[in-house]
């Protein structure tokens, strides 16, 4: 197991270096003078320009610049935002809990609905229920989620007036951030109605973000379950006279879930891409909206840092999923 673990990490290091190289090249590939871009100014005297160039390290050779960049990054220095002049890492961590909270809730919705739906569809293969679930899953999988979000806003915020249109909580409530998760913080604050307000703000974005993972998980669970149900040991369990619930819930599901766990891990990238759109529609103050805003404001250090941090998080989660997979399924280790 340790060997498997080390091998996984060894593969990850060159990938991470490559990712950092892409983030490093990004600013240098931009059309125009990178010094002016990073200083956020349109014109400079030659002396100012030389000073800024020196301060940014652009007067040194490219390999040295890259090593500098790597060194700073490993010490947690991702540079300053061109617009706000604040540290990119601080800005990232100020917004990351919002994205994490949204993603976790989306994933809970996707897993809690997707796995049972997939299991029942497989057990009742060919039934009306099966066709309905698979048809719905294909629609969910094909859904332009930015449009889906707008539709939900029209229905629940416009016509029914059940939920607010944007943000994380009503402006009525104010309490210090403890965990960064609005659901937990609003409970801790003890203010009446704060938790309800947080939930009503969260529910639509979580549904929108969870839609594609939900569809993928339902489809994957169904096909994994169908495969397992035709195995000999499941027939043996049935022949022994075990109740169907036990055969499906214990014998079959345990093995069917192995590929499903991989699928769930792979959804992290989907969630991050989805967060860009979902957060933009619902004005959710998370990392996705931050990236889109930065692209519009041409805040290139933020784009550079955000790109790297998001890729690093995805790689980290995938590593954990890989290790978990190795733990559940010993065959994969070799």
């Amino acid at each position, binding site marked *: 197991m340790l060997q498997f673990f080390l091998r996984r990490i060894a593969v990850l290091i060159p990938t991470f270096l490559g990712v950092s190289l892409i983030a490093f090249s990004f600013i240098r590939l*931009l059309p125009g003078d990178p010094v002016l871009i990073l200083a956020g100014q349109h014109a400079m005297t030659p002396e100012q320009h030389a000073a800024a160039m020196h301060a940014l390290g652009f007067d040194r050779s490219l390999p040295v610049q890259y090593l500098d960049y790597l060194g700073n990054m490993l010490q947690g220095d991702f540079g300053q935002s061109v617009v706000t002049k604040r540290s990119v890492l601080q800005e990232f961590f100020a917004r990351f809990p919002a994205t994490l909270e949204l993603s976790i809730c989306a994933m809970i919705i996707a897993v809690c609905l997707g796995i049972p739906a997939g299991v029942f569809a497989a057990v009742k293969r060919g039934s009306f229920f099966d066709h309905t679930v698979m048809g719905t899953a294909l629609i969910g999988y*094909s859904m*332009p989620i930015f449009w889906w979000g707008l539709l939900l806003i029209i229905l629940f915020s416009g016509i029914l007036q059940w939920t607010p249109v944007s943000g994380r909580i009503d402006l009525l409530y104010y309490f210090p951030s403890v965990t960064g998760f609005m659901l937990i913080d609003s409970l801790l604050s003890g203010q009446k109605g704060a938790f309800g307000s947080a939930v009503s703000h969260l529910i639509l974005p979580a549904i929108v973000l969870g839609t594609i993972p939900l569809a993928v998980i339902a489809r994957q669970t169904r096909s994994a379950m169908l495969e397992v149900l035709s195995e000999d040991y499941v027939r043996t369990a049935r022949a022994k006279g075990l109740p169907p619930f036990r055969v499906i819930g214990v014998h079959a599901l345990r093995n069917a879930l192995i590929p499903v766990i991989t699928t769930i891990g792979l959804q992290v*990238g989907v969630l991050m891409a989805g967060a*860009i759109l979902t957060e933009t529609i619902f004005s959710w103050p998370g990392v996705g909206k931050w990236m889109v805003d930065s692209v519009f404001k041409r805040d290139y250090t933020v784009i550079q840092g955000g790109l790297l941090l*998001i890729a690093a998080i995805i790689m980290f989660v995938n590593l954990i999923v890989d290790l978990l997979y190795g733990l559940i399924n010993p065959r994969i280790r070799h």
Partner: protein
Amino acid sequence: MADTSIKTANEESPLRRVLAEFWFYFAENRGAVIGLWVFVALVLVAIFAPLLAPHEPYLQYRDAVLVPPVWQEGGRSAYLLGTDAVGRDILSRLIYGARYSLFIGIVVTTVAMVCGILIGVIAGYFRGWIDTAIMRLMDIILAFPSLLLALVLVAVLGPGLINAMIAIALVYQPHFVRLTRAAVMAEKSRDYVVAARVAGAGPLRLMFRTILPNCMAPLIVQGALSFSNAILDAAALGFLGMGAQPPTPEWGTMLAEAREFILRAWWVVTLPGLAILITVLAINLMGDGLRDALDPKMKRS
């Protein structure tokens, strides 16, 4: 007589036999056939857009701003699906939009597929350090969420439809590389390849004439998937203001322009998204059918 008819059946060109067999399995999937018809209809709409569209897609009727669809109160028969905030006919814009979406899908898939196959065949055929270098590079591209990488690339290249397409194609191409490489590696040690090599076939012929045709099935399925995802991602970039720019009648861009009217004029927001959903759904239905028809594991022989 019976003898001759059997003979002609056997003498049918192999291509026709393959196609007939393909259609047999494809047609078993009812959803796939429906998807195919919808897709054919969309292609026809895109080709004959100037004949079908009742109005010019860019023409603004100042006396008809935000007219609702014809079946709603206040609708006018001249504008079947209503008009947008500057008085352009939505039906005409949707019809022209089909051109953009299908064009995006075709170009992105072709570019990603051709580049991906070339690189994948090289990696799988030569192995060694070339393979390692290529696969590491692909891992790096795959480490980013596709939409994020496309967004950042567009930020470098500048917003616009062509740049969005380049970015999406670049992001999709590793999937083709991986599939091709795996298939080439599996086929390379087969007897027929060894036989061809012994017969004197050079590496180029071996790679592209001998091995590649036997690796196409998973690539075609992945192609269908890329086609629908490209349409979704291009529409998403358009929606974020980073893809096709207004006043282009691209569906995602139309949605972005319509956002502020979301609570006043439902048709401006609903219809372009519905067009995207129907197109993507049709292609995904077809993709499922292709997978069933081409995947040897699924065939009952």
